[in-house]
């Protein structure tokens, strides 16, 4: 008992880069488990939730957002140096996010068109995932992440076991849930077969095709799915747009989108 009490709680920090905050808020959204998490770990740095801003090192750093500016490119190096385990949370941190759509365009032109005082804007040409800058220990997928997966990741890390976060397709979750397959039964284009599970197959449950929020699954055959989309009447441009959403810059989706764009 005494030894347990003396054991130091793992220190958790949450860092934000270019993102909408939705992923870190999903930790606060985990109402049932939030108190248990707060009891099991020390929240050392989480500006969205607490005024406490304790210095590192941290046992677990949860990193949200992509790298889009020079200062952020330097800051992520500091975060890595202070973190024993670095976990990226969400599509921005893992794949560059929706803002990576600019990677196919001229950012300077956007700045000229959008901002009244473009001289104040300093940004990188590309929005890139954290793993392009520092080694990442685990990537939690999704736009936004599923808070059950985040809690599972924290629980597994505390217990020293592998988290139950499968890398297979959405289709397994979809069939376990008893959804009727929307491409087969309705002819609705669906990214589920090439997308990683984790959301619980929400969209097909509401009669919509998967949008690919969780990014490429472990062995995505985008070429085969692209052929099926064509059979369902989709044009190359439409297919390209389907791959270019929250995980557009994930290399498998990026490659697929570029291949379709030309045809």
């Amino acid at each position, binding site marked *: 008992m005494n030894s347990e009490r003396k054991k130091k709680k793992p220190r958790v920090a949450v860092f934000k880069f270019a993102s909408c905050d939705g992923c870190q808020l999903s930790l606060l959204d985990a109402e049932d488990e939030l108190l248990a998490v707060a009891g099991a770990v020390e929240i050392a740095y989480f500006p969205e939730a607490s005024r406490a801003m304790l210095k590192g090192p941290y046992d677990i750093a949860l990193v949200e957002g992509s790298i889009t500016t020079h200062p952020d490119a330097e800051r992520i190096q500091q975060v890595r140096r202070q973190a024993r385990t670095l976990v990226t949370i969400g599509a921005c941190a893992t794949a560059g996010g929706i803002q990576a759509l600019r990677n196919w365009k001229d950012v300077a032109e956007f700045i000229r068109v959008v901002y009244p005082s473009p001289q104040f804007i300093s940004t990188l040409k590309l929005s890139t995932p954290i793993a392009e800058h520092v080694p990442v220990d685990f990537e939690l997928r999704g736009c936004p992440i599923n808070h059950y997966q985040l809690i599972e990741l*924290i629980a597994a890390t505390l*217990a020293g076991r592998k988290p139950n976060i499968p890398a297979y*397709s959405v289709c397994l979750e979809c069939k376990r849930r008893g959804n009727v*397959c929307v491409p087969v039964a309705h002819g609705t284009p669906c990214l589920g077969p090439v997308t990683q599970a984790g959301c619980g197959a929400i969209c097909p449950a509401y009669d919509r095709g998967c949008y690919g929020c969780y990014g490429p699954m472990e*062995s995505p*055959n985008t070429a085969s799915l692209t*052929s099926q989309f064509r059979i369902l009447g989709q044009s190359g441009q439409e297919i390209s747009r389907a791959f270019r959403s929250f995980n557009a810059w994930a290399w498998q989706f990026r490659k697929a989108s570029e291949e379709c764009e030309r045809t």
Partner: protein
Amino acid sequence: MAERLQARLAPEEIDKLIRGLARRGYQVLGPTVRDGAIVYDEVAGAQDLPRGWTDEQEAGRYRLKPGTDGALFGCSVGPESWKKYLHPAQVKLFEADRQDGLFRILGGPAPPARPYAFLGVRACELAAIAVQDRVLLQDKYRDPVYGSRRDPAFLVAVQCTQAAATCFCASMGTGPQVRGAADLTLTEIVNAEGHWFLAEADGDRGQEVLAELDRRPATDEELRLARTAVESAAAQQVRRMDTAGIRDLLYQNFEHPRWDEVAARCLTCANCTMVCPTCFCTTVEDDSGVTGDRAERWRRWDSCFTMAFSYIHGGSVRTSSKARYRQWLTHKLASWIDQFGSSGCVGCGRCIAWCPAGIDLTEEVHAIRGAVNHGNTDA
């Protein structure tokens, strides 16, 4: 066993049959329409059955459409099978908690509150249940989850009188006439003279239920009509699997170039294994919670198409989609025979219709059989 009862029923009796089974304490499950497909769910009466619906199926394509004859069972099998009840997609194996340093197991999975009665079990599905019986019960290691659901289940079979384009039960020797043990076997006839059912029962349980319905003994002509209707379902089948020497064929064609061709199309999405009524593989996942004071162990459907399925020390054994498709097909059609004494395929065609890439295993086997033998060095 009592003498076989063969009776003619008016279609209204199906409603009474459902209510009679419910009165006996069964949860009656049957085909019903949801989200543009036939699924299995609880049916309270004949109004829940897919009356007047039929379906159109092809590789990678399924459409429900209005039929012309008002039949109750005018649809072929849909995406789900009875596996979802007998071998559930996820089941909590146990919960445990930790108190004063002690680890206590708080009980295992409970059997269903009411035993199941399945209404509308097709011949291929009876065959599939028999396959899962062999896998999950007929060994010294009985699966208690499956057993507690399977043992008390009441089976009402329905013989098919029409086939989908994806059906190939006739060539697998599993249908369309019912060969397995059902408590009650129905054949639905809709013709110029009317709409009626032939009901057949061999055992006491089925005969008791049948005895409660308004019926009259079936005439020889009615038996002949029913037989002909089922034969026509066999004649309609456009797909077939040539099973002659199939075990050796697949063992000897481990390096056939066809595996590369199918791998180029295969999405490794696992849909074929999810819809297969005999695929039984599961994974076990532990949830230890944040505090570590309470834990749960869950069993979930798994698939040989996932990378984790073949994960051993150092990595996954089957990393390529070629290796995974070959594993699935070779197990289903060849090594299953060595392992369990029968094919793992019953010819229901679900894996063909519900493959988002439209891969057809009958076509794959045909291609492997048709070309020259490409060596068996690694088999």
